[in-house]
């Protein structure tokens, strides 16, 4: 069957999201138009969204198909993992190690990245972020934390040397 699969997928995603929100209203009180419960407005919206999704889906059938274009699977995965790793490590290890990890992971997302470039980027960006965000803008995240706490004493004189 011929169809514009891009639109079919869009309609499908809309219907799926509508379904999830509709499921979520099951344990909420719907209420009446006069006394709307917490579930009233979302349920109406979910209905509208499902309707829009269905129309998009039906209109897509019979249309010439459109390609999804290229996707950089490895790159996308690495970029999405980077913030998660940052979130997992920032409280445990501190700002410097978590930024370094996030940058290192992200640098390998490009098809053109090399180990040398990744290492240079990691080092410069980590120093830059610590100086700008922690020292100059006063973001309240310790440079090192937890098991690496003792390293703060090591870097403090270096920062003092440059007056930050």
């Amino acid at each position: 069957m011929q169809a514009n699969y891009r639109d079919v997928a869009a309609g499908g995603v809309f219907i799926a999201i509508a379904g999830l929100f509709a499921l979520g209203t099951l344990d909420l009180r719907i209420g009446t138009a006069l006394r709307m419960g917490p579930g009233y407005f979302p349920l109406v919206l979910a209905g509208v969204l499902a309707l829009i999704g269905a129309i998009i889906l039906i209109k897509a059938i019979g249309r010439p198909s459109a390609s999804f274009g290229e996707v950089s699977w490895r790159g996308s995965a690495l970029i999405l993992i980077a913030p998660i790793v940052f979130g997992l490590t920032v409280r445990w290890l501190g700002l410097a190690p978590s930024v370094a990890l996030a940058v290192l992971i992200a640098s390998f997302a490009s098809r053109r990245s090399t180990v040398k470039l990744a290492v240079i980027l990691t080092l410069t960006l980590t120093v830059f972020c610590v100086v700008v965000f922690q020292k100059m803008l006063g973001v309240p995240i310790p440079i090192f934390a937890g098991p690496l706490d003792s390293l703060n004493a090591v870097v403090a004189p270096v920062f003092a040397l440059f007056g930050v």
Partner: protein
Amino acid sequence: MDIVTELFSNLSLGFGTAALPVNIGFCFLGVLLGTLIGVLPGIGPTATIAMLLPITFNFEPATSLIMLAGIYYGAQYGGSTTAILINLPGESSSAVTAIDGYQMARQGRAGPALATAALGSFFAGSVATILIALFAPPLTEIALKFGPAEYFSLMMLGLVASVALASGSVLKALGMVVIGLLLGLVGSDVNTGAQRFTMGFLELADGLNFVALAVGVFGIAEILRNLENESDREVMVKKVTNLWPSKEDFKAMIAPTLRGTALGSVLGILPGGGAVLSSFAAYTVEKRISKTPERFGKGAIEGVAAPESANNAGAQTSFIPMLTLGIPANPVMALMIGAMIIQGIQPGPNVATEKPELFWGLIASMWIGNLMLVLLNLPLIGLWVRLLTVPYTMLFPAIVAFCCIGVYSVNSNAFDLYAVAAFGLLGYVLVKLDCEPAPLLLGFVLGPMLEENLRRAMTISRGDPTVFVTRPLSATLLLIAVAVLVITFLPAVRAKRDEVFQEEA
């Protein structure tokens, strides 16, 4: 007091605030950053403002808004530089500038093209600043008379207009608005305290983090899109000489600049309008009324002057609905509203009366910022040319790092970073399916307000839904919304709409 004296006293109050050294400094920082991200590939004002939003918490409210605003209109200037010099728009609002601007550059007239863009933008920015000062107070007066029914209808109109003016499929844009509205409802229900869609996560009780959503959808998803095919940028013009336009150039650009400014100012006020639509529409108009339309696409100076003045005028007047009604016209304005809420200011008509120094200071700072931008962009053009070729491979790890730190510093919560990854993925999938993310963010900001006003209006009317059509102001707004929606679906209008957005092809 007559209007002129009032305008002058307001503006002098504004310049008094904007000229404070700290505000001048952060205004400069804002426009500098704006130009920078306009020039650099793969990062736009929405993502930048979202990342920097949390860091402005410690600033005075006026200072923070002045800087964030500077990023937005500064990006319009930087975007035109890349459009002219390397045929790649740094910002989507400069996409049409690339058509004739790049041709001018190829003919060795990069200098005049850049000067035309900067001077046109400055003129448009100055006019738009005065327009905001003139129109904001009366609109505020009207807005103060609004009840819940009027607010509900006004927001409906805003959402519908943002759908009508978005590029691409109307149905998909509508769907994106609804998804945004639904996402905005996640968290505790204000009226009953019931937990909605939190799936048991305590972190979601206060709702989804607005910064995480914006950073994910506009920052991370954009990186994923750029990774699809990486290519180097080639700069043909290594050195820009002869910046100043000739006498003939000046003559040729006056009328298009005036028309572009007028068109941009009007379109900027409309929800979903702002800079992008303004520039496309201005280019189309110039081509249509030109006696020599065949010159367009081959280096016509009108094709640079009109869209560049229009996008700057539109960027600026889109502040009007945000400042007077508390309703965002585009994603950047949604972020500005977020910035106000974080600073403890209730956006809406009360801002002008309760915080006049913030209100007028922001307006005055725009003129100062525009002046700085002309100085930044013309004499320093050599510096920006060098930055044009920074390879993307080196840029996006920095964007990722800034996104992480920015989001985490909102409320020191690791959960928000997982949300960034989730929204990055969702945003990318939706972009892949031709769904524009801008209406989603507007819906997200308006969702809770829309529900709140709907419930309040229904309670006041004792469950009578006709309240929205029996109150004249509300009925008018809804009528306009329905009309806009119907018109958008008319076949003739749809064809025209597609045409406007396809100029770049």
